């Protein structure tokens, strides 16, 4: 696939790689369009770039102009740029707006064998379809707009083989948190992570997206899963999927892409999926996680290299080493994000929430990943289930995953969050504390008001 997309060898030693699909949003594109203007350049292939708006959109009242004038300026700039350069823009109210990594797959834009770039680190999500997909910065967004290519160095590949199957009540999110914990948050630097094995084959496409989405939290710029029947089935008949005889041709080509059984990897790492528990982060990196029944590790239980950040984490989180994570009180429960804001995530959470009530003093809210997800959820009356339980039902966007919109933690609130990052200050309060977990676990925490084992709800 690398060679297929290679345009040229560059003088410096890197390769010029063609980008098959370029996704843009309001946060990392305005400066890139500005740079094009400064250099008097145009967009080379406007048909290969698709835009949506997600990071800054309010999730309560989306009427324009937005109350936040800076947010309004950003969406307005994106509208103008897309208009000027004839780029397809899925705006609010189009029926297809949402988080860019939810929208592209559900439109059928994301397909096997493509190179996909977007000015967002969670572009790794699209590797779940057997695409080479990675996040880029704004200068690289500029380069893709101008030339549809990037200067790249080839990545090494680490195969992460997941044998056996996940037990009941344990989800893709738990598996990927577990993997990141075992390998660490920097082991993936210089690597693409290819996930394989029975536990991966068994996952639905949406679950596979959760796995690849979080590759970047392990340091790997790309996640990858070989395309299979499930992949093709998911894409089939999506709005932008190939149709009729082109569909047959596409599937034939996609089938030829899967890495061979005898493929050689730069590294192989084995995980026993049957041993994974519901997993919760206790610290300030996505690698600082434990099983629901485990205790926060003592310094001397950790590698020397991990001790500095662990020390920082104890202090910031206000947790003590040796303390259990179960029963930790939570203030805010957030279900959403490009990691876990898809319809299957909402279904699983709704199943837990059904006929229960959100605990007093807990603020719980659901932010569907896209307008399509919201529509589907409403058709299935999931919104009713959440609302009856005391959840707020919001409009689609990135929301409190990174808190660029009004959805923020305040003070040192503890949030149970289905998102992807528990960095210091990530959810909008410089002292806010994030516990990452699966959407089912967030639902359970919302009901009990504390970190709980979702398996107790399933029994």
């Amino acid at each position, binding site marked *: 696939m690398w060679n*297929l*997309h290679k*345009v*040229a060898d*560059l*003088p*410096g*030693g*890197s390769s010029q790689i*063609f980008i*098959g699909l370029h996704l843009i949003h309001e946060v*990392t594109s*305005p*400066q890139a369009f*500005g740079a094009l203007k400064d250099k008097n*350049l145009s967009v080379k*292939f406007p*048909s290969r770039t698709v835009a949506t708006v997600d*990071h800054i959109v309010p999730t309560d009242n989306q009427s324009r102009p937005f109350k936040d004038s800076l*947010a309004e300026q*950003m969406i307005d700039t994106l509208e103008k740029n897309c208009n000027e350069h004839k780029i*397809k823009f899925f705006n609010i109210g189009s029926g297809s707006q949402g988080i860019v990594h939810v929208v592209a797959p559900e439109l059928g834009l994301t397909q096997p064998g493509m190179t996909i770039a977007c*000015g967002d*680190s969670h*572009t790794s999500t699209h590797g779940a379809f057997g695409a080479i997909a990675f*996040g*880029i*910065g704004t*200068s*690289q967004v500029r*380069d893709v707009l*101008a*030339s*549809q*290519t*990037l*200067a790249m*160095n080839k990545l090494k590949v680490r195969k992460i083989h997941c044998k056996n199957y996940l037990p009941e009540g344990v989800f893709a999110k738990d598996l990927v948190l577990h993997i990141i914990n075992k390998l660490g*948050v*920097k082991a993936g*630097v*210089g690597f693409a992570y290819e996930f394989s094995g029975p536990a991966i084959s068994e996952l639905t496409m949406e679950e596979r997206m959760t796995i690849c989405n979080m590759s*970047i939290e392990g*340091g790997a*710029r790309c996640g990858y899963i070989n395309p299979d029947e499930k992949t093709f089935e998911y894409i089939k008949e999506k709005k*932008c999927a*190939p*149709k009729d005889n082109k569909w047959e041709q*596409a599937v034939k*080509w996609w089938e030829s892409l899967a890495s061979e059984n005898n493929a050689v990897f730069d590294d192989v790492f084995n995980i026993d999926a049957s041993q994974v528990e519901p997993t919760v982060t206790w610290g300030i990196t996505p690698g600082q996680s434990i099983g629901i029944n485990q205790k926060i590790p003592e310094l001397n239980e950790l590698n020397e290299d991990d001790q*500095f*950040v662990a020390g*920082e984490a104890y202090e910031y989180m206000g947790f003590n080493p040796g303390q259990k994570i179960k029963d930790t009180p939570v203030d805010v429960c957030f279900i959403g994000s490009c990691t876990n804001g898809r319809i299957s995530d909402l279904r699983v959470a709704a199943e837990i929430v059904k006929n229960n009530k959100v605990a007093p003093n807990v603020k719980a809210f659901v932010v569907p990943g896209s307008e399509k997800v919201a529509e589907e959820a409403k058709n299935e009356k999931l919104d009713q289930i959440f609302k009856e339980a005391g959840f707020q039902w919001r409009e689609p966007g990135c929301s409190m995953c*990174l*808190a660029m919109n009004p959805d923020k933690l305040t003070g040192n609130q503890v949030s149970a969050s289905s998102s992807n*990052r528990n*960095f*210091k*200050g990530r959810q909008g309060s*410089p002292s806010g504390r994030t516990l990452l977990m699966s959407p089912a676990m967030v639902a359970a925490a919302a009901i009990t008001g504390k970190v709980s084992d979702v398996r107790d709800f399933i029994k």
Partner: protein
Amino acid sequence: MNTVFKAPKGKIHRISGTCISLIGDDIDTDRIIPARFLKCVNFDSLGDAVFEDDRINLKGKHPFDLPEKKKASILIVNSNFGCGSSREHAPQALMRWGIRAIIGESFAEIFYSNCIAIGIPCFTHNKKTIKQFQQQSEKENLFLDINIKESSAYFSDKKIQLEIKQSSKNMFLSGEWDATSTLLNNIQLIEKKFNQLPYIRLNEELT
């Protein structure tokens, strides 16, 4: 923070300046520039906001607030610096504060490529040497003169060998880190590739 901002331009052979040390592993881009500062359509005002939350928290004791480090331009960091979000706002904020080169144990991938794309070389060295650099830089004003071709840093009467990817080094020396024009040199090959790729013609619905 340097008062007049001048972005790097063209071939970069040499970077010299005072070091500023920032201790800690896995310092993510949310910490370098919190998300609320991403609500902008240009990078101009990011320099003041670099490490804002960490700086408030340390009440003037953060390295980026120390008067003696105000004109520093070489940042010394530990491992996995710049992990997390792909926001170029992070290196842009560092650059607009005055940073022109970074030396660390290791860098997160996207951060590293963003730094190249804006003309900020990132060098690596082992944990022990980085620690020595950091300690020395905290004690006194450590002045480094970095020669990119040699990948070496000179200080007082010493010379130390740094590591940098050969392809990155070549880009700084040739000026190709500012990649757009280099990429556009191959415009005919790009068009050929566009016409060849199987999925482009299978996805006419998009075009």
